[in-house]
């Protein structure tokens, strides 16, 4: 199983490699959101070439809904990827798969719709569609990951392993619309990771909210971790995605290190564990096999 990390800039690659990352996920400008930075198609081609020589896999994430206005840019992107195809194109929208076929890239596509892909017949359906893999729904538990991965028969199965769960994706400008009502500058709401929602009967449970050009997302208050699940079922999976939005660099790196080396899991729980557990819950007894 490969550990997939998101790059903010290329300089992180060496450090993340040393910590145990196998795959580096980058996002192209204009076709992605939910990321600390995006890159031009030329930059991405450069990253792919460097991975070929320096080692590591390069995935490109297109994590937004594709509308008609985005199709010309999608076409340009796919054309630009033909000379040096990335190891995977991680797509939120099936338009990417449909157009990738025209460029001989469909076997590079991983379909990652976040909430869908939930059963063995979905897997069979996408296996026959000729793509590289699918990411299971974030609503499934690790036992379901294992059950489904065992029947994948050639289709790569990946999971969202770490970070805040993306719960809600709207095309509406929900945050900036509200800020405008409050007389707050609209730009304060764009790509700003400081904003949270708190439901009136759940004080203290704060859901990160994020808005960018592709719309508004709401995330889980509590972060997901999958250390035990990856130890148990990692051998059945192809990729585990570690998302970094709303995480500090230190937390992200500590998580990556702990997935790569279970002996470091205790240190992760010690330094960052509170955001991953229900209120008052104890740290898992088997955290990395070492009690913190």
């Amino acid at each position, binding site marked *: 199983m490969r550990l997939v990390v998101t790059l903010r800039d290329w300089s992180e690659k060496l450090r993340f490699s040393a910590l145990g990352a196998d795959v580096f996920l980058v996002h192209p400008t204009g076709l992605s959101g939910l990321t600390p930075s995006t890159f031009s198609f030329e930059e991405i081609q450069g990253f792919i070439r460097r991975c070929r020589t320096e080692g590591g896999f390069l995935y490109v994430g297109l994590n937004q*809904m*594709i*509308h*008609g*206005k*985005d*199709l010309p840019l*999608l076409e340009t992107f796919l054309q630009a990827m033909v000379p040096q195809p990335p190891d995977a194109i991680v797509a939120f*929208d*099936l*338009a990417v*798969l*449909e*157009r990738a076929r025209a460029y001989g890239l469909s076997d590079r596509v991983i379909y990652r*719709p*976040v*909430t*869908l892909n*939930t*059963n*063995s*017949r*979905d897997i*069979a*359906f*996408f296996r026959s569609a000729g793509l590289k893999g699918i990411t299971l729904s*974030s*609503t*499934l538990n690790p036992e*379901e990951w294992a*059950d*489904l991965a065992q029947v994948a028969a050639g289709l790569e199965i990946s999971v969202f392993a770490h970070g805040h*769960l993306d*719960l*809600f*994706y*709207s*095309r*509406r*400008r*929900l945050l900036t*619309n*509200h800020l*405008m*009502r*409050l007389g707050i500058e609209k730009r304060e709401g764009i790509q700003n990771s*400081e*904003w*949270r*929602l*708190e*439901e*009136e009967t*759940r004080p203290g449970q*704060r*859901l990160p*909210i994020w808005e960018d050009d592709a719309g508004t997302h*709401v995330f*889980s*208050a509590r972060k997901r971790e999958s250390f035990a699940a990856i130890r148990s079922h990692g051998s059945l999976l192809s990729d585990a995605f570690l998302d970094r939005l709303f995480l500090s660099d230190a937390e992200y790196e500590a998580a990556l290190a702990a997935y790569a080396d279970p002996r470091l899991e205790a240190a992760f729980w010690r330094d960052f564990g509170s955001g991953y557990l229900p209120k008052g819950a104890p740290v898992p007894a088997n955290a990395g096999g070492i009690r913190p």
Partner: protein
Amino acid sequence: MRRPELLAPAGDLERLRIALRYGADAVYLGGQPYSLRSRTAVFPLDSIREGVLYAHSLGKKVYVTVNAVFREEDLLGLRDYLDSLDDIGVDGVIVTAPAAVAETSAHPRMSFHLSTQQSVTNIETVRFWAKTGIRRIVLARELDLGEIAEIVAQSPIECEVFIHGGMCSSYSGRCTLSNEMTGRDANRGGCAHSCRWTYSLVRGEDPLLGAPAFSLGAKDLQAVRFIPALCAMGVASLKIEGRMKSPHYVATVVSVYRRLIDDVMAGRLLALDTYDSLLARGENRPTGPGFFEGIPGPEQQLSDPGAPKPSQSFVAIVEGYDPSLGMATVSQRNVFSIGDLLEHFSPAGELRQFRLIDLRDAEGMAIERASHPQEMLRMSVPWPVEPLDMFRKVN
């Protein structure tokens, strides 16, 4: 210009009959095991059979939603269930999961429609699904008129568009807010509408004191002024949301859009305000244009997410009529009294008003006030009425 189908929701057999009688060309309803309204407004197979027979007797169609996002345990029995719908003569099924899409070849008679839960937003995704045997795409509700036109013009299969009713604020099928907040799976019939709850906005560690509540919720969709364009672009089906809505709501909304579509097709369109005002009689929630004019602004957010009060104007539905006595037998739906000015509302569309002068209980005793929900009553009406006609109180 192709006449689009008017597709209405049916929460039960009564509302199925009302929707069809008031002008829908087809209805969609939830089957018991696999619908996104799994808690209420679902039909067992016997009721589906009854509904299909009724619809087909009128030359109209029934589609069944099988649009949950299936987990492994849901697959058991799926084929048998689809076989049963096929045997009953259901005209189509509305599906979301690829697991259900894969059943198209096993059921060639039934039309498989891809649910809006797949949030199809572009022509390339339409093409992907068209190759799987899907015959109709219910387009995402996040498209403006230009985007819809572009897709419809190039689509190899039929396109269906929502024109009225509640809107998910999220891209449909891509939301698990309810799962997070309540443990109820939004994509398997458990949506708790957590997007309509009240939130406060916090920046860093600090709540924005004094700020009004934040709502993720959206106003309902109302598309009267866009119907001429949707008809002109060749949309195959225009869909009304609301399997949980009242008979009066269904009757009102269906009848207005029926009249509007017919008027567009006949080239006799009235001022759009006319249709708006008729529609307002069945409405109880704030409405707007959704995405038809582009990405909605602040005015389209549901700034006061409190539960809407149902309209009290709908007072009775006709069960029968005795021409010798000039008395209708009605089922009470809201309080009304002797002396009230009532409006007779029927599938024929003509609105006529009268003052109520004679009201009797089931034993024939004269009463002043009808105050018991669902009570069977008799009342004087100065002209013949038909079953499923309705009365509403004029304020």
